[in-house]
């Protein structure tokens, strides 16, 4: 079982993840957009960049209503990426199995604090999703599966923190592989689409002189 998870299943998950993401991105870009014959009011490229950046902060009128999502959203996403890229076992894994080079990982205490921040953020976001009538209504199974899978991946990672038991490490790896297989077919794809989609909206409206 351990060999299967460390070997064939890992390569299968990696293949599904990479080919799925490439295929999804390719199909989005291939869809293109209709030619816009209007006289441009502003540069589409500049608006694309501006909107991509502006969306990192909520609109002034919206801020008080979405404070929880904003704070919890940043807690979770920044925490997750810090863990993904700077947790010592991850750096080692990337160096040994994928990249051939590594970088300075975060110290153990920083790992603990970062995972606490990320866990709190994810939990708060999911609770907001189910307890707010509007977000509950627009959420479907995909949203919940993605949240739960991500939570389980993070949890199994933290439970394996002592790095003493192969069973725990393999359990973490298994959940990561499940997530990678699920990823391209779900809204988790927003990790790759969020910048192009912001840019598209920005360019589309910017060309017409509208602040998006």
């Amino acid at each position, binding site marked *: 079982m351990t060999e299967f998870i460390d070997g064939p299943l890992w390569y299968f998950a990696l293949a599904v993840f990479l080919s799925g993401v490439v295929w999804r991105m390719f199909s989005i870009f291939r869809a293109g957009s209709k030619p816009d014959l209007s006289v441009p009011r502003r540069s589409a490229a500049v608006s694309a960049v501006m909107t991509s950046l502006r969306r990192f902060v909520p609109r002034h009128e919206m801020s008080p209503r979405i404070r929880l999502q904003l704070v919890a959203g940043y807690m979770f996403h920044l925490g997750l990426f810090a863990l993904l890229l700077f947790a010592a076992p991850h750096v080692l894994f990337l160096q040994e199995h994928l990249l051939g080079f590594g970088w300075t990982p975060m110290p153990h205490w920083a790992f603990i604090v970062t995972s606490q921040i990320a866990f709190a953020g994810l939990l708060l976001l999911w609770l907001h999703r189910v307890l707010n009538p509007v977000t509950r209504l627009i959420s479907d199974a995909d949203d919940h599966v993605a949240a739960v899978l991500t939570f389980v991946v993070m949890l199994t990672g933290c439970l394996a923190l002592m790095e003493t*038991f192969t069973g725990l490490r393999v359990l973490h790896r298994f959940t990561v592989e499940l997530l990678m297989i699920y990823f391209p077919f779900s809204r988790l794809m927003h990790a790759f689409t969020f910048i192009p989609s912001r840019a598209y909206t920005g360019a589309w409206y910017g060309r017409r002189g509208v602040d998006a």
Partner: protein
Amino acid sequence: MNNNKRSLTAHQDDFFSVVKALLVIVLLLSIAPQALAAGDAEPAAKVVNPGAELWREVRQREAPVAGTTQVAGMDSGVLINIRGEQWRTFRMQQLIPAAGALLGGVLGIIVLFHLIKRGLRLELGRSGNYLLRFKEIDRVLHWFVATIFIFLALTGLILLTGRVVLIPMVGHDVFSVIASASKEGHNLFGPLFLLGVIGLFIRFVSKNFPGKGDIGWLLKAGGMFGGKHPSAGFFNAGEKIWFWLVIFIGLTLSATGLILEFPFFGQDRLIIELSLVLHGVGAVLLVAGLFGHIYMGTAGMEASLESMTSGYVDANWARQHHDQWAEACEAEGAVIAGEELAKKQRLRGTKNRVPDRPAAEEGQ
């Protein structure tokens, strides 16, 4: 590289062996004059085996005696700490059986009570009108604390009772994996619980001070055993007691937990041992209280869970269980008709699914 590591550890081992040997010698030397003096007093009356005497001193059965040592560190002058054994005995012979009896007993009483009374029903049925009881922020906070506490309770109980309950079931190998995972998870989520308890305190304290009707409510045991339902405000006396238990025991658990998790701020062994006792006893008490709280929030009281899910409660529920609060809401005109609420929240009557969001726009 590995060889270097290995030889470094070997050096460290050697070093510690020498330190330990020195420590024993220092202790023996400090004890020797007393042993000799004792020997002078009663020369031939009783032949005391000097080895046994020495060993008794080393074991320090009465209380730990600190010897002198060059090794810097908390308690490094103590050879064998007898209190560790006292804690072990307390844990195995008192705490674990008492925890089992308390938790099992509370569960048994709840099941029995439910079988006999079937929980508290809505006496007048539903009115179809609603009152807002908890804002979204309060509900998010409540479930945040609940999720974390239940995770901590599970992992904590595994660590507390694993030797007695789980090892006979799953064996040592599997248990060592479960215990390691539980320990890591428990340590990781502990500090988040503290933040949650502080949040609960800030959001709910104003409604949990003793008030009109609390004594009467307690004397009638909340109307559990029949009779007219006692009067209550926003929270009844039972809920207020639960709130203060969560705050006081929760803070105690957090403080002792932090002492145990970060044992390098000068806390000595006595403080750590005291923390262990408080942590264990407090946790078991709060879990027992939680059984009652969960029962009252679900099967024990019809329609009460809605207050923590949708945030709204039926006006009849409010009148039955929190009459003073219901009257105040009615006087303020805060009652919301069912249709109005449905329109406002689209909670009911909306069968049509919302069309899928466009693939673009970042899953907002």
